[in-house]
């Protein structure tokens, strides 16, 4: 791969414009990682420094520190540049501890499972 001229980083799709910036990385499994982009390649593999996972359940959120991460590009959905002058999250959201967010995640998962089984039981009614 040839090295792009300095101006190209502003007009091309290369991630060079995002280097050393704080980014939000969305993964295919729904996880939201945040951190500083230190390196990348043509597959969108990325190195994130001071990475943390932002877990959101309803109005609760928690940032779980991860350290230095290498992300395999095939898992990347989106890489977003955060506007430092804007609030990262809506005002009503509350930061909680890791233990509490894990409990909230479990409760949400159980609710989804319950909804699924109830829907299955109702299917014979043909309400739709």
């Amino acid at each position, binding site marked *: 791969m040839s090295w792009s001229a300095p101006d190209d980083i502003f007009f091309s799709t290369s991630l060079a414009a995002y280097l050393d910036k704080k980014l939000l990385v*969305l993964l295919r499994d729904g996880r*939201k990682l945040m951190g500083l982009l230190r390196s990348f390649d043509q597959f969108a593999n990325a190195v994130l420094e001071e990475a943390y996972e*932002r877990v959101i359940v309803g109005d609760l959120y928690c940032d779980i520190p991860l350290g230095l991460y290498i992300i395999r590009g095939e898992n*990347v959905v*989106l890489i977003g540049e955060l*506007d430092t002058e*804007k609030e*990262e999250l809506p005002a009503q959201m509350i930061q909680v501890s890791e233990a509490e967010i894990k409990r909230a995640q479990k409760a949400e998962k159980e609710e989804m499972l319950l909804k699924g089984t109830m829907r299955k039981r109702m299917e014979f009614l043909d309400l739709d």
Partner: protein
Amino acid sequence: MLFFSYFKDLVGQEVTVELKNDLAIRGTLHSVDQYLNIKLENTRVVDQDKYPHMLSVRNCFIRGSVVRYVQLPPDGVDVDLLHDAARREARGG
């Protein structure tokens, strides 16, 4: 190559990119590459309340492999030109 060239001509237009995870993002097409990776500027998420983590994201890079649709303004497309280009490409040109 055809769609890469086509998207290059669309740079600067307002588009809505719908991803395979159902997230839809509206923004100005900044750039595209051979993998049809897309960079959008001035982005807003279509269903903002459902995606609070995207609130402060204004520019983003979208990996081509996760795009489901790219929605364009109807007058932003020269359908005949595209039609001819597709025919030429199919012919092996």
